[in-house]
């Protein structure tokens, strides 16, 4: 594997550190995501996957280190900051409000008001616009028929809810979508559907970070695999050049890969 592309990373982190009291979450962690790729982040429990992702999505503030979005240095103070830079996260807990309908959930926290006096003075929501846009973006992802947009999310199955959460991220994430264990709670069919969604996001030009424990799924969708171990990046490999056993070996420290054999540059 030799570097063929010289594209700049869309998300980059240098020497991130984050401790929780005596517990070290991140220890000089490096990270790069390139435009239009699916990067899987894998690692054992406590390896710092979640901490890393929370720093990138603004849910945690790193103790030290630098983060860049499109080469521009950023320091996220909240998930809102990250969103405004086009980084959307689908959390493991889904972050949908079950009693609200699909369209309300898609726009939760960034509702669109009507134009003119109705919106400015009476703060009236433009439900029509939100429903139309929601229908369109769900339709683009092939997850919804039109008439169901006002269905409340609690009447949906786990996979459908996941699809709504992913669609929300895809609708608003102009650059990067982070998916935290998106298939953890799903059955085989629903998992397959979410994986298909991930590929569709990539085909639309989105950059995707996928946190997962599920090796077959990672090897199915990922372009590159970032292996996290003891709070730092142990290696970045591709599904083509390494086996699942190799990746597990890296995770546990049984195997180390010299940097020249890693895939630190984009494959797409």
């Amino acid at each position, binding site marked *: 594997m030799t570097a063929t592309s010289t594209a700049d990373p869309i998300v980059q982190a240098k020497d991130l550190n984050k401790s929780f009291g005596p517990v070290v979450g991140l220890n000089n962690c490096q990270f790069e995501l390139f435009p239009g790729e699916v990067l899987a982040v894998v690692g054992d429990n406590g390896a710092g996957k979640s901490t890393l992702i929370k720093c990138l999505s603004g849910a945690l503030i790193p103790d030290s280190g630098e983060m860049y979005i499109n080469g521009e240095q950023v320091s996220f103070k909240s998930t809102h900051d990250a*969103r405004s830079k086009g980084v959307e996260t689908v959390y493991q807990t889904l972050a949908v409000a079950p009693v609200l309908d699909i369209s309300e959930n898609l726009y*939760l926290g960034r509702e669109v008001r009507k134009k003119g006096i109705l919106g400015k003075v009476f703060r009236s929501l433009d439900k029509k616009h939100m429903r139309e846009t929601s229908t369109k973006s769900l339709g683009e992802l*092939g997850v919804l028929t039109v008439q169901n947009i006002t269905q409340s999310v609690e009447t949906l199955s786990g996979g459908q809810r996941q699809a709504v959460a992913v669609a929300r991220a895809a609708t608003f994430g102009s650059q990067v979508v982070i998916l935290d264990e998106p298939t953890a709670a799903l059955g085989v069919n629903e998992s397959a559907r979410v994986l298909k969604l991930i590929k569709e996001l990539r085909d639309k030009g989105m950059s995707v970070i996928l946190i997962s424990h599920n090796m077959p799924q990672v090897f199915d969708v990922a372009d590159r695999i970032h292996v996290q171990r003891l709070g730092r990046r142990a290696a970045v490999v591709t599904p083509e050049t390494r086996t699942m056993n190799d990746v597990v070996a890296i995770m546990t420290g049984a195997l180390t890969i010299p940097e020249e054999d890693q895939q630190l540059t984009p494959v797409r």
Partner: protein
Amino acid sequence: MSQSAPTTAAEEFAEHGKSPVQKVQATLHKYPWVSPFVVLALLIIIFSVLGFVFDVGALENFFKPGTISLMLQQTVIIGTLAIAQTIVILTAGIDLSIGAIMVFAQMMMANLAVYTTASNVTFMAGQNPVLAVILGIVVATLAGALNGFLVVRFNLPPFIVTLGTLSIFTALTLIIFKARTIQGKEMPEFMLLMNKDFQIAGIGFTVGLLVMIALYIIFAYILRGTAWGTHVYAVGDDPVASELSGINVKRVLFSVYVVAGFVIGIAAWITIGRTGSASPNVAPEINLETITAVVIGGTSLFGGRGRLLGTLIGTLIIVVLDFGLSLAGLDQAYRVLAIGILVIVAVAVDQWIRKVKA
């Protein structure tokens, strides 16, 4: 992964066949005010049949304009306060201090507006009545803000916070206003404005009733038509998801208690008009009655589910039961019994409805 994914996920959303029971469940789920509406309609039908067919008690007077006027006026205090209670309960909270704050605010208004020539008045007497009402509403709003501050800042359960402020404001009422009832004739006319009435088709309407209806319309719009309203539902439904979606959960919760305080302030003015005086002993059971109205009206105590329209119907159910049973010549105890059963049934139905599946 041997199973191939469907070409689109759309078929996943296709309608499945539903049994009749599931259809009822789904309908109630989508329109939570339907079940209280059915209960209200049944009550009216039962009382009519008992009155006109079986000639029970004085029930044939049930549809007399005088009775209807009285019933409408009876709704205003519970009905207005129940708006505040609904908004709080939608966030999965509860407000036990509603009655105490309302009493405090109305005593404040009356003690400010009372004529200095009346006997035994406090130092604050003799103010402009408009100022008195405004100050009373401001004080109620601040009291709501105190509830909200304690809930949000110290992460205390609303039940505990409002149980505390219930005692605090009850005590403050007695300490500051000396438990003195101020009669209507001791205050300027303006204080009793909410009781001004007029007749339409022989039925008496009061200004207070119109204000209550206006508040229902305004808050129904706010809850369903604005982002703040959506956030109230979302926060009550799932605060963690709301926070991750970028909603400032603490700000929404705080604002809910402030808004509730404001509504309580208006209710205080309405109460002075309705009772024709300001007494520290007015409506001792009002807390439980507002909660009852909200719960019977189909709003879930677990938050995030319910409609203001349901609360209005819930209030009407309480009042209709009250009048119907007393016109039938039954003891007050039967009304308490009936309300108790209704509350339990309402919560049980809510639990059932929550289990709905697509």
